[in-house]
C-alpha cells in the first residue's frame, strides 16, 4: 500500500510538470470537443492527431491521447442527451433517457449528473488501476473464448431489458443488428460475406455510419416533419443544476455503474459497451418503478455514464500490463506507444514507471479538468437548444457527414449513412427501436468469433460453456435476467387473455 502511494506520488510528480499538465488539458479539451461533434469519435481523432504527437516525449504523448479518449466519453454524452445522437457505442444507452430528460427541459440536470457520475467513476477507476492493475490483468487473462461468448450473450439479454416497447420487437432488432455485424470478412475462412461485392464492406459496416444513420439522420428527418410529434420542441428549461435530492437519488446508480464499468472495462472485446448496457439494465431491474425508464429516468443516465467512464479507465489495464488492446482506440494507443519506442506488455510497469504511474496520475488530473471544463459548459450547451431547429439541423448534418467521412476518408461511408438513415427512419415509423440493433451490431462479431473458437479448441464439445466457472456464472446471470424479463410479459399475457375471456 505504501509502495503504491509512493509510486502514485511519483506519478503525480511526472504528470504535474507544467508541460504534461498542458498536454493533459489539450487532450481533455480536444476530447470534449470531438465528443460533442456528432460523428467524430475518439478513434478518428486520435488517428488524425497521432502524427502530431511524434514530436512529443512518450509520456506527454500518451497523456494527451488518453485525455482525448476519456474526454470524448464525457463529450459524447452531451450530443446523446441534447440531440439523441450517440457517437460511440457506449453512449447509445445514455441517449434513451437522457434525450427524454432534455425534452422535458431537464437537459442541464442530465448533463450535470452525467458529468459528476463520470468524474466519480473516472477517479474510482483510476484508483483501481493504481491499486490493483496487475492482479486485475491476471483476471482478464483468465477469460477464454467460452467466457467471452457467455459475456456477449449477457450483453444481448441486457439489450432486451432496455427496450421500452415490445420485447418481441427488441429481439428482432437485436437479430437484425447481429446480421449487420456479420457483414464483412469471416476470420475463420477469410471469405467475405454479404458485401454485395463491395471491397469497402470487407472490414464490416462502419459503426459510425450505422449510428449516424439510425440515430442522426433518422432523428433529423423526423424532427423536420410538420405533422410529426415535434420532438425537437424542448420544454422550457427548469434548472441547470441538479437538486441535492436528484444527486442523492442517483448516488447508488452511479456506484453500481462504476462497479460494473470497472469489472467489464478490463475485458478485451466489447467490455465497455456491455458495461454501459448492463448498467442500464440493472438500474431498470432494481428500480421500484421500472416503467419510468425510457421516459426520462435520471438513473438511466447516471449509471451507464459512470459505467462507460470507469470502463474507459480500466480498459488501460490490459493495454499496459498485457499489451492487449480492448478496443479500436486502445489499438491506436499501442501504435502510439510503439512509435515512441515502447512496446506495451508485461514489462511496462517495471521498465517505464514514469509512463505507467504518470498516466494514472494524469487520469485523476484529467478527470478533474474535465469536470471543471464541463460543468460550466452545461449552461452553454443548454443554451444551444434555444437555437431554432431550422438552423441547428444544418449544423448536425454537415458535422455528421464530415465525421463519417473522416473515419476512413471514404465517400462510401457517407452513402452507407444515407442508406441507414432511410432504414432507421422506416424502422422508427414502425415502432422499432435502434438501440438494441446497435447492441446486436457491436456484439455480433465477437460472439460468433468466440463461439467458433471455443468449439474448435474444445473439439466440438458444447459442454465447455457450462464447465468453465466464469462462463457458467455469466450464463446463469443471463438466464436470470431473461426470466425476469419474460415473467411480467407472460403475466401480462395471462391478464390479457383473462380480459378477453371476460369480455366474451
Amino acid at each position, binding site marked *: 500500500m505504501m509502495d503504491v502511494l509512493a509510486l502514485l506520488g511519483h506519478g503525480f510528480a511526472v504528470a504535474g510538470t507544467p508541460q504534461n499538465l498542458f498536454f493533459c488539458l489539450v487532450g481533455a479539451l480536444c476530447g470534449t470537443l470531438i465528443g460533442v461533434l456528432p460523428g467524430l469519435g475518439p478513434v478518428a481523432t*486520435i*488517428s*488524425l492527431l*497521432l*502524427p502530431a504527437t*511524434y514530436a512529443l516525449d512518450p509520456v506527454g504523448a500518451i497523456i494527451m491521447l488518453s485525455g482525448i479518449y476519456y474526454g470524448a466519453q464525457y463529450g459524447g454524452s452531451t450530443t446523446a442527451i441534447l440531440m439523441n445522437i450517440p457517437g460511440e457505442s457506449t453512449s447509445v444507452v445514455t441517449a434513451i433517457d437522457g434525450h427524454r430528460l432534455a425534452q422535458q427541459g431537464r437537459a442541464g440536470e442530465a448533463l450535470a449528473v452525467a458529468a459528476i457520475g463520470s468524474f466519480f467513476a473516472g477517479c474510482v477507476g483510476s484508483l483501481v488501476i493504481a491499486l490493483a492493475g496487475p492482479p486485475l490483468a491476471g483476471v482478464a*487473462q*483468465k477469460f*477464454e*473464448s467460452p467466457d467471452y461468448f457467455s459475456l456477449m450473450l449477457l450483453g444481448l439479454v441486457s439489450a432486451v431489458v432496455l427496450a421500452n416497447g415490445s420485447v418481441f420487437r427488441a429481439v428482432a432488432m437485436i437479430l437484425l443488428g447481429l446480421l449487420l455485424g456479420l457483414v464483412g*470478412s*469471416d*476470420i*475463420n*475462412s*477469410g471469405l467475405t460475406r454479404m458485401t454485395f461485392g463491395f*471491397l*469497402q464492406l*470487407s*472490414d464490416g459496416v462502419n459503426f459510425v455510419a450505422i449510428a449516424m444513420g439510425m440515430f442522426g439522420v433518422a432523428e433529423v428527418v423526423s424532427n423536420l416533419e410538420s405533422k410529426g410529434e415535434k420532438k425537437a420542441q424542448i420544454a422550457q428549461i427548469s434548472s441547470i443544476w441538479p437538486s441535492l435530492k436528484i444527486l442523492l437519488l442517483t448516488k447508488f446508480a452511479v456506484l453500481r455503474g462504476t462497479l460494473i464499468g470497472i469489472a467489464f472495462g478490463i475485458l*478485451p*472485446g466489447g467490455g465497455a459497451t456491455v458495461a454501459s448496457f448492463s448498467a442500464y439494465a440493472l438500474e431498470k431491474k432494481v428500480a421500484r418503478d421500472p416503467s419510468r425508464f425510457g421516459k426520462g429516468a435520471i438513473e438511466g443516465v447516471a449509471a451507464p455514464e459512470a459505467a462507460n467512464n470507469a470502463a474507459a479507465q480500466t480498459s488501460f489495464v490490459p493495454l499496459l500490463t*498485457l*499489451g*492487449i*488492446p480492448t478496443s479500436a482506440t486502445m*489499438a*491506436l*494507443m*499501442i*501504435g*502510439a506507444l*510503439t*512509435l*515512441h*519506442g515502447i*512496446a*506495451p*506488455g*508485461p*514489462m*511496462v510497469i517495471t521498465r517505464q514507471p514514469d509512463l505507467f504511474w504518470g498516466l494514472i496520475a494524469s487520469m485523476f488530473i484529467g478527470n478533474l479538468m474535465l469536470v471543471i471544463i464541463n460543468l460550466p459548459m452545461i449552461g452553454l450547451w443548454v443554451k444551444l437548444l434555444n437555437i431554432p431547429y431550422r438552423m441547428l439541423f444544418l449544423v448536425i448534418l454537415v458535422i455528421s457527414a464530415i465525421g463519417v467521412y473522416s473515419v*476512413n*476518408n*471514404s*465517400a462510401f461511408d457517407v452513402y452507407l449513412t444515407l442508406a441507414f438513415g432511410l432504414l432507421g427512419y422506416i424502422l422508427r415509423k414502425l415502432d422499432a427501436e435502434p438501440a438494441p440493433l446497435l447492441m446486436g451490431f457491436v456484439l455480433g*462479431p*465477437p460472439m460468433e*468469433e468466440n463461439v467458433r*473458437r471455443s468449439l*474448435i*479448441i474444445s473439439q466440438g464439445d458444447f459442454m465447455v460453456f457450462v464447465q468453465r466457472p466464469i462462463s457458467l456464472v455469466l450464463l446463469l446471470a443471463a438466464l436470470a435476467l431473461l426470466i425476469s424479463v419474460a415473467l411480467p410479459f407472460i403475466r401480462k399475457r395471462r391478464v390479457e387473455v383473462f380480459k378477453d375471456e371476460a369480455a366474451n
Partner: protein
Amino acid sequence: MKTKLGLLAGLVILASTSLASAQADWPRKAVTLIVPYAPGGYTDAVGRITARYLEKALATSVVVENRAGAGGIIGTAYVAKAPPDGYTLCVCSVGATSVAPVAQKTDYDPKKDLRPISIVSTIPQTVIVGKSLPITSIPELIAYAKANPGKLNYGSSGAGGLMHYSVALFQVRTGTRMTHVPFKGGAPATAAVVSGEVQISFTNMTDALPQMEANTVRAIAVTSVERSPYAPNLPTVAEAGNLKGYSAESWNGIIAPAGTPEPIIKKISDALAKMVDDADVKKSMAAAGATGVFTTPAEFAKRIDDELAQWAVLVKEMKDGK
C-alpha cells in the same frame, strides 16, 4: 465507385498533359505516400519514418495518407490505379502484394500494375510456444506435432494472414498437422499463447518481443531467411528444422504505379539507398521493432515474384487438401 472513376479520369487527363515535362524536374510538388493500413499500426510507423526521410532527401513535402481496409488491398489498389507520375507512392506490405493476389480476388496484378522500388524494412515472425509445453526447439516441435496430430492449437491473426500461412507452409514442409485457431488480430493471438488458450503461434516480432522479455512465452525460432538482430540467439526455422528456403517474413516497401518513368524511380531508389544508413531512421526503425533494409528495384521485383510463386503453391495445396 463512380466518384473514384471520375476522380481518376480527371487525374489521368491532368497527368498526361504534364507528364513529359514532369520527369526532368520531379518533384515539383508534394508527394503523397499512401499507407494502406490504419494509423498507429506498424506499417503506418514505417511509412511515416520513410516520409520524414524522403522529405529531406528529395527536398519536397511528403504527405502520408492512410487508406486502410481489406488487409491493405484497398490502399494498394488505389496506388495501382493512380497516375504514374511519381506523385503517388505506396508503403506496401507483403500481405496485399504477395499473398492476397494469389489467395483472393484483387483489382490489381502485382506483376503488371505495380512498380517495386525498394524494401525499406523487414520484420520476421517468431515461433512462440506456451511455457507449459515441453518444446524448446523446432525439431522438438516437429516431433511433438507428429506424435499428436491435430492436438496442437496454433493462433493466428485470421485466415489468410501471414500468421496463418507461415504455419500452413511449415505444416506442408514438415508433414505435420496442427489445428488453426483464428483470432481478430495478432495481439490477441499472442496473448492467447501467454494465457495458454492456444499452445503455439508464429507471431509478429513486435508482439512477441515484450512477452519474450517478460518470460511469459518460450520463443524457439524466427521465420526469416536470416537471424534477427533483435533476438540473435534464435535460429531460423529453415536452419533449425532443416527446411531449406522456408521463409515467411513481413516486409514493407515503397512501390509506385506501373509505368512511372525510370528517372523518377532511380531518384527515389537512390534516396532510399542512403536512408538505410541514416542514424535517425535506424533509431526510429528499431523503436518500431523493424530492421531497415534497402533493395534495388530488380531485387524487390524478384522477391515479389518468388513470394507469389511460393504462396500460390501453398494456396493450391490448401484448397486441394480440403
